[in-house]
């Protein structure tokens, strides 16, 4: 008899980044499109204070994802620990998805809002995107936070706000290219701009 599938048997994509950068908005854009391409997806939200993100996802994905494939994971006020040093609770959540849905194609893991040093444990996420926004200042890439530098993909969100907060997109583009080896994509999660590029990168590097 073959052993039941575990967290090692399903592709996992981490979505990290500071509070308010647009992680939840990005996931809300990604899920319907990934679902349309025939994938069965689970979503885990590492909320800091409440189950609010998970509840928001459940409402948002009603009819698209079964409710029991959306869970919130509490991280004892240590969101970075939950995705980096000790991802136990996230791994347990993935295992419990697989007990019910052994053929699951992908799990999206949203980190709690964290600082620029947060990276994903490679045993938890096969690939991770780090989301920042123009509204946090155009010097974020230049600060070389490990989250920004090490991520498989840097997503620079809220391009529509750049002109209102004095952020220079060209500076962000060129600084990102200087500090990173991987790609960077500009998005506006409110309108959906750039989302197809994010999907293409995930398909290319995770779902091949």
């Amino acid at each position: 008899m073959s052993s039941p599938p575990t967290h090692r048997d399903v592709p996992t994509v981490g979505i990290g980044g500071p509070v308010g950068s647009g992680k939840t908005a990005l996931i809300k854009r990604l899920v319907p499109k990934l679902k349309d391409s025939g994938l069965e997806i689970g979503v885990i939200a590492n909320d800091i204070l409440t189950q609010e993100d998970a509840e928001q996802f459940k409402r948002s994905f009603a009819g698209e994802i079964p409710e029991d494939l959306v869970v919130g994971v509490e991280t004892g006020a240590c969101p970075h620990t939950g995705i980096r040093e000790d991802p136990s609770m996230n791994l347990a959540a993935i295992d419990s998805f697989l007990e019910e849905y052994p053929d699951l194609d992908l799990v999206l893991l949203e980190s709690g809002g964290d600082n620029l040093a947060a990276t994903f444990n490679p045993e938890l996420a096969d690939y991770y995107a780090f989301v920042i926004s123009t509204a946090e200042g155009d010097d974020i890439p230049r600060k070389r936070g490990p989250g920004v530098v090490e991520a498989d993909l840097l997503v620079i969100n809220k391009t529509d706000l750049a002109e209102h907060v004095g952020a220079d997109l060209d500076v962000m583009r060129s600084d990102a290219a200087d500090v990173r080896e991987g790609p960077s994509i500009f998005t506006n999660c409110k309108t959906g701009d750039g989302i197809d590029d994010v999907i293409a990168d995930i398909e290319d590097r995770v779902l091949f």
Partner: protein
Amino acid sequence: MIDESGLLSALRLADSFLPVGSYTISYGFESFAEEGRVETGEDLRELLSDYLYGQVGPCDMVALSAAHCAARQGDVDRLARVDDRLHATLLAREFRESSLTSGKRLLDVVADEHAFVDRYAERVGDEARGHYPTVLGVVSATKGVSEYDARLVCGYAFVTGLLGAAQRLLRLGHTEIQRILHDLFPVIESVERESADRDLEQLRSCTPLIDVQGMRHERAERRLFVS
């Protein structure tokens, strides 16, 4: 791995660096903090003493000792009975879930390090449950950590886990937290002595308020911890 004195393994198992999710578990402490029932260092010291006398000593340490003994005798069936007894004793659902999740994670972390542990791990989810004190007892036994040391590891790790939670939930400084830890050493030693000669049939827990707070936590609006 050769660890003749078991000391390095004991340090590893007592360390908050051990990735078994302890930092996410408060065993109802979050409810005490949220309701303002624990505010000062003195409150915290008293509450942790209650946890130790009512739960950790007579329940966790007794289960750990029984598991340690069963592992030394190579008796996997008895480990399932230890798990069942623990499962029936932990009243709050989140306490049972926290214990099971940490237990399974510890088995995962030490996978392939010892054949007997792997034999027990194969049964978990089927004939055995994999509660944390049981797993800790088994792992300790196979790594040369004595029953006595393993009970102290159990008490120490429990206290540091909850002190960590307290530091994040209350306004307490790091030196005060260390003083409380130091003050609780005699309590850990005392509950260890009391639990040392108890067998599985004497396993019990008596922490009514802690159990109630653990159950209240299930419906709490603000939740930083899983229990």
